[in-house]
């Protein structure tokens, strides 16, 4: 769950960004981001496999279907 903030002015956004940068540059933060990238890459790989053409689909005509 996201940690909340009560004020999203530009000044506060910079404060939030500074905190986020400290986390992202920390060992824990970098490990966490790398883990996220690995997980999204795995999802992308699964979707890529799902999109790949099955040669069976290319065989035979899509023929006339009589209703």
């Amino acid at each position: 769950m996201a940690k909340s903030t009560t004020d999203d002015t530009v000044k506060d956004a910079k404060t939030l960004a500074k905190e986020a940068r400290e986390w992202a540059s920390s060992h824990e933060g970098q490990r966490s981001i790398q883990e996220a990238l690995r997980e999204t890459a795995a999802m992308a790989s699964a979707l890529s496999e799902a999109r790949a053409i099955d040669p069976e689909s290319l065989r035979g005509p899509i023929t006339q279907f009589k209703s």
Partner: protein
Amino acid sequence: MTDAFEVVPYSIGSLKDILARKAGTPAHVIDAKLHSHYFRDYFAELDARTIVVENDYVDHDFLEDFASYYVRCFGNYRRTCTRLHFFNATFGKRQLNALLRGSRSRGRLDQGKLQDAYLGFIIVKPLPQTIIGRTCLKTYDDHGGLRQFPVVRRYDANLFGIPLWVDTLAFQEQDRVVAACATSALWTIFQGTGMQFQHPIPSPAEITRVANTDVPLETRTFPSQGLTIPQMAHAIATVGLEPFLVQVRDDYVLKGTLYAYLRGSIPVLMGIDLYGISGPAPQFEARHAVAVTGFRLGPPVVKKHQKVAFLLKASGLDRIYVHDDQVGPFARMAFDKSFRDKAGVERASISTSLPLSGGGAMRAAPDIIMVPLYKMIRIPFGVVHDTVVSFNGFIERLRSNTRIPLGLMQQLEWDIYLTTINDFKEEIRATSELAGDLRRDVLLQRMPRFLWRATATSTGAKVLDLIFDTTDIEQGAFFVRAVEYDAATSVFLREVCRTPGLDIVFGTDLAWKILEWFKAQSA
């Protein structure tokens, strides 16, 4: 001598009677056609009230098919058709005659009133059974924006000098001679792409002929026994477009891909496996091809893959509208069930209006789609989608581990689709969500003709647009820019993306191109 025209009050009975008379087809054959049942409901929804029957009409597409095949038949097939015009206003032959005579009486029918009431036309072909020719009918009402028909164009119909038009996409039934379902679906597809990408629109006979020229079946071209996927791809290539194939047995892949290209006004050909489900196990019946021409969106569903959760707007697609040559134009197909196919794989299935012999209805399992693309639309949807998923994953990690601005507090919903520079900039100019120098900068920025647009919203409000260049290569700078609707989010992302070492963490992940852009912007 036949009258040039007739005016008939609309009813499904009068329509069937006209179809039977004009085609020379027995009434029981007309009755049995699925199209008759479909038109009954369709015209009820459009509130059709009058039919103007235009006799001895020369239809270009049928003339091509006639010259290709029917002219050499020993039997005497007519070369002219009948065109039926439909109106949601009530009038009679006397009033139309008065208009043609130039009468100026009060309350007279005029071109404006006819156009306001115009619902479109159906060409009736003089064939034994497959009589529904080029059909251009107004679409269903958009139901408050829920239904979308992005692939429509204007069709002109001149009725004895009276100009009429309808915005739709043409449909026709396969004649099982020069065209099977695949050819009919391609013909509809080309109706859309022909206008958008400026290429000639071949007739059904021409489509079947060219499809068989370099990629022939083992049997004769006519009567058509259908087309293979490679033949359909070849037909698309001959009009100067590039066929892009995607396997769509996965529900998420199907919905995301269909939506992305349909939103870009590109009709999509879909190959489906038809199953009968009257027995204990689904029974494979046939393969079929339809042209997907519209959709309806429900609430999106979070896509989960292990620990990744991604909210894609297109996942809420709950209905598509297809030109099914066996049923009619804009036929509804609902995503409402799943089942196990002949290989035992769980697949999404969609409802159809196609009957099963012996009772019940067929269900369709989408198998493959073919998208006819202009050569400059190179980056496929999948690449953009996966890049956005990766970027969203980074945002989600920030959300879970640090304090973040309001615009990023809720899970972002992503709307990813193809668009053009003109459509994108017109929308930017029309919106009140962007103002000042930022709006001006976006409008002035040079961009390619075709773009991928990924819009992030949070509780309905736009947070970001990510704009990608479709003409580039994945390894290139194919990310164009972000449009930042939320000031706090903009400042936050620009600062965070300056974190030292982040480029090394991301490595070759394509999402880095997005972060790199934020990093390069002024703080």
